[in-house]
């Protein structure tokens, strides 16, 4: 297992290097640069070309692409993630300031969607063909098909503006910074974000469960006279869990970037919002670090999933 982990970690480094180059290249191919976003178009004639050149030189944007990439990667390798070109804030500070908000949201979404998705999936599989199975299938399809911003707006309208039960958005209010005070703020964005995921997990766990229940070892378990709950949960669900873990595991890192829409709808100050602003402003040091962080999260999640599936399913061997 240690060999497996070391081998995988060694693969991560060149992948990160390659992906960082691709992202940098993508930014380079986008028209304009950070300086062009600092100047209001209405001021187009008020700033001289000499001043623009000075600004570009100051931020090192006048250098050739390869040279800039070389400087950036060498700084990163030395632990210097740079500063935001727009506001001069250290990148590490921005990332570690915004990341907890996104992780909070992702955590709630993962917990709710995993719990409800698995329970409903098992329920649906056990009642295959019944009206409740069909209803849950329809609900699952709707959950997957309807965009999350729509659910977000409906939830806001209903629970925040009409019923006044929950706040309209944001993460903190002055004077209300305890965990209990903050809880109402995360309910709506967390649940809406988990809604789509719940539908996916439900459908996945339903089919995995059906597959598992049709296996020979389930018949054996029944022949041994084991109680029904034990057959379902210990024998059936344990095997069905493997593909579900893969699904959930891969969704966790994508939530870092995937919660952008929900963060915007609910004014949630997470990394997704920051990423959008950075891409729009072509703030390349910030874009690069958030992108790299997301990629790293995916690669690590992939490793953890492999380890977990091996633990859960004895048929899987890491070697």
């Amino acid at each position, binding site marked *: 297992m240690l060999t497996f982990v070391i081998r995988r970690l060694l693969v991560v480094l060149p992948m990160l290097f390659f992906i960082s180059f691709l992202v940098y290249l993508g930014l380079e191919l*986008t*028209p*304009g*640069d950070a300086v*062009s976003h*600092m*100047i*209001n*178009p*209405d*001021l*187009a*004639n*008020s*700033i001289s*070309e000499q*001043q*623009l050149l*000075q*600004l570009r030189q*100051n931020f090192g944007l006048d250098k050739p692409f390869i040279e800039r990439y070389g400087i950036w990667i060498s700084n990163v390798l030395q632990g210097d993630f740079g*500063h*935001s*070109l*727009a*506001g*001069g*804030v250290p990148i590490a500070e*921005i990332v570690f*300031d*915004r990341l907890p908000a996104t992780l909070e949201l992702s955590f709630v979404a993962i917990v709710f969607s995993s719990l409800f998705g698995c329970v409903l999936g098992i329920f649906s599989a056990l009642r295959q063909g019944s009206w409740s199975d069909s209803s849950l299938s329809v609900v699952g399809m709707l959950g997957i098909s309807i965009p999350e911003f729509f659910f977000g707006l409906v939830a*806001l309208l209903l629970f*925040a*503006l009409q019923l006044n039960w929950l*706040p*309209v*958005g*944001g*993460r*903190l*209010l*002055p*004077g209300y910074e305890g965990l209990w005070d903050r809880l109402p703020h995360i309910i709506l964005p967390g649940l809406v974000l988990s809604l789509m995921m719940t539908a996916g997990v439900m459908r996945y766990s339903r089919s995995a469960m059906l597959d598992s229940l049709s296996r020979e070892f389930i018949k054996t378990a029944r022949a041994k006279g084991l109680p029904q709950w034990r057959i379902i949960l210990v024998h059936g669900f344990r095997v069905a869990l493997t593909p579900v873990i893969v699904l959930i595991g891969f969704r966790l890192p994508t939530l870092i970037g995937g919660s952008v829409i929900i963060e915007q709808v609910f*004014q949630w*100050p997470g990394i997704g*919002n*920051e990423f959008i*602003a950075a891409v729009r402003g072509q703030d390349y040091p910030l874009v690069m670090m958030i992108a790299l962080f997301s990629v790293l999260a995916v690669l690590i999640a992939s490793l953890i999933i492999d380890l977990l599936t091996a633990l859960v399913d004895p048929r899987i061997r890491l070697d």
Partner: protein
Amino acid sequence: MNKYIAGVALASAIQMVSTAAYAASVNQLSDVRVRQAIAYAIDMDTIAETLLEGKAIAADSMIPNGAWKTEGLNKYTYNPQKARELLKAAGWNTSQTLDVVYYYGDQLTADLMVAMQAYLQDVGIKMSYRKLEGDVSAQLGKLPKAGSQTSAVKWDIAYGARAALALQEYYNGYQSGKSSYTAGTKELDKLIGRINGTVDVSAQKQAFADFQKYENQQLTDIPLYYQQLFIYQSDRLNRNGGAYGNEQFNYDWGILDWTVEPDKDGKQVLYTNTAPSQFFEHPWLNPGLNVQSKVGFDHLLTADGSLVPTKGQLAASYQVSSDGMSLTFTMKDGLKWHDDQPLTAADVLWSIETASKVPGINAVFSSTFDAIEGAKAFVDGDADHISGLSVEGNKLSIKFAKLDPNMLLTFSQFAPLPKHLLEGINTLELQQNSYWQKPIGSGPYKIAEVQMNDYVRFTPFADYHAGVAKIPEIVAFPSGQNDANVLKNAAAGRLDFGFTKSVGDVNALEAMQHMKVIAADIPYTRSLRVNNYAKKP
């Protein structure tokens, strides 16, 4: 015979090709009749009533309605027949398609493009439209080579806005060698010289009137509409007689006397927007757009709602010499920054020198600072200080090398920054300084707490020179002026004050029983910038 026919055909073909080549190189928009035809072809009154929901006024000049607007201008009222006649007289090449660009991302602009396309099509002008992406400033503003009559920008018409702090801003961009879309002329330069060359109000008004008549005939910009600003406030807020004015800038709005009813939790908090998401914007570009710039910084002078300077704010008094070439401010005694350090004339002098080296500050500020004696030598690095600035005790004296009609306006909007915190900065990185994470200001409210991207909390500055503000706390959320969060926050009682130019938001805010909307006329004109250089690239 066949040879004769072939010869005629060849000659005709050559002539057609030559005509097409000529039409391709010569810019027909340089013909004033074509520009006038475009103005006649667009029914701006109908567009204002329908697309803009009656919340805009059709424009007949770049200068907004009011005291400075001259009478007798041609309104170019919708007249498609007249447009067709003008185009015919100008020999309009109906096969060409005008390339119209814009840089706003809102649906309203896209709808306006569709409407304009239909109106122009009706008179025989084809147009396509596209949103500029990437380096918008360069695409809009690239200047032709000195003396060249060939434009350096690719578009035919650009839809945009001019939000002026001083009315001269509408026209100063037309100076020879400064505009990407209109070739300067001696006549234009003379007219610009007149509007800038006097501080005498009646002479200035006459100069503006003459410019408007010239502009109205030439249509370098085709004015479309005047946009209003809409100030909204909840029924919890009472301005207690405080004036309403151009909220995009700074004026004497009486915020010290504002009061707010307790909210549902019993807190006397004023909720507003425009807090930062990553850093506070410095106030030298948009001096009054964000909450921190409005409540956190004072200025040497204050102005009324129409931005006419009225009296001292940080300055106890000021004197302008009879020729308008020197200005002296006497600072109030005992002024302090929010960190209790003294605010002195030296801070103001340092701020002016620093601002004169910062690229992209407000155009009115840079005009004033460039006009100070010795400014150029300082900016070019040939002098350590601006020779026209001097401090003696609590007096700041400014000597101008050339007259600046807006010097008082500048000092009613220009916020001095604390020298003791920013001295020695790289002026190219003013905005990137860590000071902008929690700026120390001089205004009636100081920052008590910053939860970046969550909220900013302001409390009254106890040592404020004009007294302590009555509202004990202002909480600002990082929602912009025109984003979707305005309506959500207002509906949820988390927005007591703000302003917007979005007509869609205005209608929704007006429908909320607890919100009040006040329209303010501001100098903000949307127009079509017509690329009228003789040739295009």
